[in-house]
């Protein structure tokens, strides 16, 4: 299994190391930039500080446009543990908070704080934590987090998370390998600031309590090795390891393998094998944060390539546009046929889309190569030579991955452990057909990620859809149950005074018959008034009933149903009253019974009903009017604008309806049913027809309203069904 701690120490004592599979030896080209000390840049006029510069979540902005900020002042904050703040890199004014081209291969704009420098470079109040050893760990971690430190090697993982592992740490490895060609920022940092790096390591040791500290430096940086050895001489627990130069020895998993012979499992973390790794740049930033309280607002960037007149390393403020660095180091555009500025190294970097791309916390190199330094895109067919498999440091099968990635067989690519690829570019480097292999893997990876995201989203949508269905069914059941109970209650109420009601019905029927005989004998003119009054009154009684139900139930659905039921009942009553009175009496439909009862009730009852109705109406009016008028008086302006809005909305709705009517014939059947209702009303038997002829005018309006309501309900139901 994994190598024991003692074995590792023993081997290290013999000045022996392990090796990782594969690897390549590209031209180093480091002497271009590592001969001169780290330069200072003038403060750029404008800084573009990207809000999210690390892996995790961004914080919330706590500044606004126009605000003056001091150097080192925090611009964001967050309670999320995976968020680290960003800081103003110099003093000045925030002139914009907008989307600005990002330091990302896509160049897609991201939220950025634009600071216009006042050239004063005035620091904010700093609070160092010099006696960190006497402070609780959480205090030190908070200081590191508040300083905005995230891994400066490349991935940008929040340092405070990495520094608070749940497991025991055997080895703290400090990564000073810097294996990628051209880049020398860590090299110069170790040469010039070895002491401060050691201070940072001290802080990390306080936090992590590792058994041993290994500082890995490639043997092509003898000066850096010497400087670090001198700085770490006092502490026997710190060991500077001279690692053979081979690309990509600086990869986290590769370096762990070289120094400890432990392999980080796929999808695992270094801490799973008892190792934590930090970059030298991160150690430097930690020391800055703890001993002087300075947040991470600048970093060393290598500006190199043969299209640069004065290549070298510079201290760049985070947020400086690349153009500022290029101008300072005298970039010669004429040496490039086509402008090609690369952020990062030649193996893993990406071409930037604009020279206004800002320097971020993970930017270690700006490379401006001449055309002869960088190969063109001259991709040819794979010849299955297998050279890529020989050099792969993760022991993958690059050509298999390539076939599957190219054919979009994402499942198979994953079967070949696509996600273990560290995108080092060694395979593409040795490919005789010049296939940009890593490019294919990156595309495949991003496609898989998007697919997984979509899958997650669709699972969530399915879940929500199903829950909604269940809810709708439950609501429907609840409604049905309520209706059933209400109907039962009505039935009971009817039953309790059932005999009385039946008697009344019989009496009323007798009266009706007598009346019918009387009418048939009498003149039409005489009949009309006698017919009219009860009819009108019955209509009013219906109204009263309607108000009753509305106040009791207060449910629009029920009202609509009641209205429809009433209309039906009336029709049925009209038809059955003559033909079979007994049948009607036995009828179960409570609505019908009620209806008949109301219609055939003696005049006295109706009078009482109308009086009651008038009273309730009065009351309602008395209650409603002040309530309606009062707010209008209080807020006339608000009401005006609201009314205007309402008017606009109504106009819009009308326009839409008109448009629909013209284009859509679906409304036709509804209109027909409305007409049918009218027809049936008018076609009722003779004696009812006479009375109802008067009612129709009033009823028509009501029916129309009911139908409109029913239509609206139907529409919503249709929508529900189709969803």
């Amino acid at each position, binding site marked *: 299994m994994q190598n024991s701690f003692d074995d590792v120490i023993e081997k290290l004592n013999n000045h022996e190391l392990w090796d990782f599979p594969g690897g390549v030896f*590209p*031209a180093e080209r480091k002497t271009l930039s590592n001969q001169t000390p780290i330069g200072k840049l003038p403060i750029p006029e404008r800084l573009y500080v990207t809000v999210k510069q690390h892996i995790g979540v961004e914080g919330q902005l706590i500044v606004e446009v126009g605000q003056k900020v001091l150097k080192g002042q925090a611009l964001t904050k967050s309670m999320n543990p995976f968020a680290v703040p960003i800081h103003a890199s110099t003093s000045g004014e925030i002139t914009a908070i907008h989307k600005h081209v990002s330091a990302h291969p896509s160049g897609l704009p991201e939220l950025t704080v634009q600071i216009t420098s006042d050239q004063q470079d005035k620091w904010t109040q700093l609070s160092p934590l010099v006696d960190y050893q006497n402070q609780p760990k959480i205090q030190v971690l908070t200081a590191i987090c508040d300083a905005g430190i995230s891994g400066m090697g490349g991935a940008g993982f929040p340092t405070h998370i990495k520094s608070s592992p749940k497991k025991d740490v055997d080895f703290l490895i400090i990564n000073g390998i810097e294996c990628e060609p051209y880049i020398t920022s860590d090299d110069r940092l170790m040469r010039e600031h070895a002491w401060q790096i050691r201070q940072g390591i001290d802080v990390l040791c306080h936090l992590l309590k590792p058994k041993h500290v290994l500082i890995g430096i490639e043997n092509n940086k003898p000066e850096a090795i010497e400087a670090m050895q001198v700085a770490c001489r006092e502490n026997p627990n710190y060991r500077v390891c001279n690692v053979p130069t081979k690309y990509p020895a600086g990869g986290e998993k590769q370096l762990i393998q070289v120094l400890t012979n432990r392999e980080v499992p796929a999808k695992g973390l270094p801490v799973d094998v008892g190792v934590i790794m930090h970059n030298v740049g991160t150690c430097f930033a930690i020391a800055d944060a703890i001993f002087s309280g300075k947040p991470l607002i600048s970093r060393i960037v290598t500006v190199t390539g043969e299209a640069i007149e004065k290549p070298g390393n510079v201290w760049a403020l985070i947020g400086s546009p690349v153009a500022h660095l290029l101008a300072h180091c005298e970039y010669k555009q004429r040496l490039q046929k086509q402008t090609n500025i690369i952020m990062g190294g030649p193996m893993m970097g990406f*071409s930037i889309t604009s020279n206004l791309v800002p320097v971020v916390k993970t930017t270690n190199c700006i490379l401006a190569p001449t055309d002869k330094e*960088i190969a063109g895109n001259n991709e040819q067919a794979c010849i299955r030579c297998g050279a890529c498999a020989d050099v792969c440091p993760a022991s993958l099968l690059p050509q298999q991955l390539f076939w599957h990635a190219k054919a979009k067989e994402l499942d198979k690519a994953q079967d070949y452990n696509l996600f273990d690829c560290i995108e080092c570019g060694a395979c593409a480097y040795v490919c005789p057909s010049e296939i940009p292999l890593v490019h294919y893997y990156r595309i495949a990876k991003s496609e898989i990620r998007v697919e997984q995201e979509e899958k997650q989203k669709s699972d969530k949508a399915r879940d929500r*859809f199903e829950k909604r269905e269940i809810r709708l069914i439950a609501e429907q059941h609840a409604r049905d149950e309520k209706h059933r109970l209400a109907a039962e209650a009505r039935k009971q109420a009817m039953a309790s005074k059932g005999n009385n009601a039946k008697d009344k019905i019989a009496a009323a029927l007798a009266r009706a018959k007598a009346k019918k005989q009387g009418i048939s004998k009498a003149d039409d003119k005489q009949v009309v008034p006698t017919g009219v009054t009860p009819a009108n009154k019955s209509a009013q009684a219906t109204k009263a009933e309607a108000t009753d139900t509305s106040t009791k139930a207060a449910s629009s659905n029920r009202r609509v149903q009641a209205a429809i039921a009433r209309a039906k009942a009336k029709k049925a009553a009209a038809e059955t009253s003559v033909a079979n009175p007994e049948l009607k009496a036995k009828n179960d439909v409570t609505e019908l019974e009620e209806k008949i009862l109301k219609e055939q009730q003696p005049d006295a009852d109706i009078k009482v009903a109308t009086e009651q109705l008038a009273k309730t109406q009065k009351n309602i009016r008395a209650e409603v009017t002040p309530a309606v008028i009062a707010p209008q008086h209080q807020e006339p302006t608000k009401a005006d604008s609201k009314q205007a809005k309402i008017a606009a909305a109504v106009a819009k709705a009308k326009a839409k309806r008109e448009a629909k009517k013209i284009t859509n014939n679906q409304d036709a059947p509804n209109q027909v049913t409305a007409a049918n209702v009218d027809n049936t009303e008018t076609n009722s038997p003779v004696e009812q027809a006479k009375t109802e002829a008067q009612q129709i005018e009033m009823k028509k309006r009501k029916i129309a309203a009911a139908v409109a309501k029913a239509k609206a309900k139907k529409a919503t139901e249709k929508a529900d069904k189709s969803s």
Partner: protein
Amino acid sequence: MSITFAILTALLAIGLLALIFGVVLGFAAVKFKVESDPLVEQIDQILPQTQCGQCGYPGCKPYAQAIADGDEINKCPPGGDATIKNLADLMGVEAKPLDAAHGQEDIKKVAYIREDECIGCTKCIQACPVDAILGAAKQMHTVIVDECTGCDLCVDPCPVDCIDMLPVANSTSSWRWNIDAIAIKQVG
């Protein structure tokens, strides 16, 4: 005599073995039966779950049921060719181009309510198949962008036409690598 005996023993031995294995296999078939996903569930897994109803069924699950019952697999515009291909693989049929009668494959969109025009009628809330619209009667409504599937169903019921379907913005996290790779010239 000895030959008949030998044949008899052989037959007996083979027969016995066959019986034993038969029993073992039969037992294993019952005991270790693999519960496979019902077909409808599998189809539903492939469908994009926009619940838009463009296929003519009221949601993805009913369409999955319909496919299982023999309906065409090319009626899902939001899923597009990728979904058709997956369905073809699952159902063992030929992939067909998308049926134009049900619409075209479109870019991803989400609904957006112009809030100052919203009258608070709740019609869109009732129409939304995934409860992604928030609001109350006579109160302004708004869309929960993360939950919106872009199904379009809320647009039509709106009486004041205040709902727009906006394309989903590309961000650095959702962006797919598609640039020319940098190739360092091999030296030596």
